């Protein structure tokens, strides 16, 4: 279980072993910080264990692409999230490659907005292991995330990322990007990277930004400006 969340963020192999699942359930059962935390950890376990159906993770990825890219900008070319997602899936073999299984499960967890400020067992374990976080680091970062989330949640409708307005979706992404937890920053940065790398492989975006692409077959480039 510990390895699986780290794998979610890192995009590494994401197969959760049965023993990891049972360990996590045991930890959750022993968690003494209240029903809300138990419930949150149980929900996170469900996200991390189950392989989401494409009908579940594709809309989340679409919404994430919508937040990362400026489809709403008047100068953005006429391509939409489905085109970007199709390109992303093609370039990164998102559906076939085993190491993206964890990314897909991570999307499911990311979509569950109320879980953001929760002290989720797999996250905390991964943070200790991968980022050397001490207990005081975890306390401090948890408090920071909780405070940021309170500000965010004031005007936010809905409980899932796909239901958020565009502005709220972008603010939510920034919560993850600004979190003190490296594991959260890792996930959203990885997501941003594969989205923009896919999008900026499309020639309409090259045209929009004035990039003329490969020189082969073109007249010699101007260099002395």
């Amino acid at each position: 279980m510990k390895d699986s969340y780290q794998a979610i963020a890192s995009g590494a192999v994401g197969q959760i072993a049965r023993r990891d699942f049972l360990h996590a359930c045991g930890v959750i059962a022993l968690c003494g910080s209240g029903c809300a935390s138990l419930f949150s950890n149980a929900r996170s376990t469900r996200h991390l264990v189950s392989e989401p159906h494409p009908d579940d993770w594709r809309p989340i990825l679409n919404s994430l692409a919508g937040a990362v890219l400026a489809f709403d900008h008047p100068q953005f070319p006429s391509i939409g999230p489905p085109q970007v997602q199709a390109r992303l899936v093609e370039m990164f073999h998102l559906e076939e490659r085993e190491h993206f299984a964890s990314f897909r499960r991570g999307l499911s967890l990311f979509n569950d907005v109320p879980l953001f400020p929760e002290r989720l067992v797999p996250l905390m374990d991964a943070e200790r292991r991968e980022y050397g976080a001490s207990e005081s680091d975890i306390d401090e970062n948890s408090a920071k995330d909780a405070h940021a989330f309170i500000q965010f949640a004031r005007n936010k409708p809905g409980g899932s990322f796909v239901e958020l307005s565009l502005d709220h979706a972008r603010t939510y992404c920034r919560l993850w990007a600004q979190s003190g937890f490296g594991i959260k920053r890792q996930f959203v940065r990885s997501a941003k990277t594969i989205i923009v790398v896919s999008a900026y492989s499309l020639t309409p975006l090259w045209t929009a930004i004035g990039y003329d692409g490969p020189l082969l077959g073109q007249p010699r480039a101007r260099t002395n400006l």
Partner: protein
Amino acid sequence: MRELTCDFLIVGSGAAGTTLAATLAELSHQRIILLEKGGHFEKEFFNQREWDMANALYAEEGARSTDDRAIPVRGGECVGGGTTVNIALCFDPVKSVWDRWQRENGLEGFSFDINARDYGVENLNLATSLNDVRTRLGVHRAAESELNRNNRLFEEGCQRLGIRAHRFELNMRGCISCGFCGQGCAYDAKQGTMVTYLRDALARGVQLIHHCDVSRLELEERSGRPRATGAVAQIKSTRAGSRPNSVPPGSLRIRAKTVIVSAGAIETPCLLVRSGHPDPYRLLGRGLVLHPSLPIVGIMREEVAGHRGIEGAVYSDHFFETHGFYFECLFGHPQYGSAIVPSIGVEHFELMLQYSNLAGFGVMLVDTPQPRNRVEWDAVSGKSKIHYRLSPAEVERLRFAAARGVEIMFAAGAREVFLPSEEPIGPLSSPRFNDSAQARYCRELKFLPHQTTITSSHCQSTTKMSSEASLGLLNSRGESHHVDNLIVCDSSAFPSSCGANPMISIMTMARYQGRRIAAELDRYAP
């Protein structure tokens, strides 16, 4: 299993391996086999498209990074290795560094005196080897006409602030300034090993085997010590677009009198680990040097078109002696460039809309080996795992460098400057600066993983030469302290950073070792 036999087996066809193969072939009559994990792609294959070339020419299809994915660790994995995908920057070996290695690591030989006869061998010294390499690669200083607008702006910015700047030396012949060095040169103008020493090696009978994944080296006990006797490898199917291979796919055993590993600072220690190389002092893979780099980007008032022209033609070593870093001009094409541009949504796109007006250069920090920064072999995933964290001292130096870099960019005429970072600093919600005075807020940068983008291209120092086996895996000849007839000759052998972009240092060392081995063949007799 098929078997081949040779005198010298060289693993890795990058800067070191190919130079070594060509030199040995030139100066001896030994049978030499040169192995390469990647494919053999030539100019007709290079289509100048970032994604295609990253997949074909780079380790892990361009996605290799530190274990936490925070720092991309790009490296060539194709015939020619890094010399096929680098931007042709040439620095001579830094004498002060090699002097320090002699003092602190007990290195012998490697004389800079052109008249020296190291190991009693005629013409065996670094100066002669360096001259050979410079001549073969056509190393020359960038001319005025070779500077694009991005490099000129950087040079002007430095001059206005009294910061010393120089023109790079480049290994190019007849460059047409396309700006696609990083995607392989489609014109054979970049003089990497593939168009120089590899051709020499092949013409002298060296057998190249590419698409070759070396599972392990074979070590046999002889007189109580392990001895390298060859390697076992799996030859993969030849990728479309590659030159044909000299052997068909399948398993292969190669028996050799001597094995030379030149697989680079990431793959060499991994190969040694999975071959069971003794490591009594826990040195193998440790002390990784990455040359962490921080891009600095300016938005200019006029078109720059930084993606066109020679990417790196100007650099500054003004702060090298005092703070251990260089500023080096660089620029990215938009696919990977978009990943380092900060923010998301409208803010990100509006920065990308400025693409033609962007100017860029980077801080290249010379980091010091720390044992916790290391390469490990993960047998489960079958991949290397790279662990790396900046030290507090390195963070401090990067803060200083970032501030100076922001000032240079404003002096060059930028109306706005930004770093690839989401970190709030001072009153700024992220490092986007409207005037030079705001550069002082760089002192608050924390360089947290996944919040400020650091890149790397110069992995070194994961096996290390030293007279003491407790300090390095190799002696001054690059020979393993623990395994007979095993030599390591690549950037992993450097005891620390070589002090600059490493290509010429690596090739000079390889040329030197090739000369030495050819003169000392009796050391490697069975």
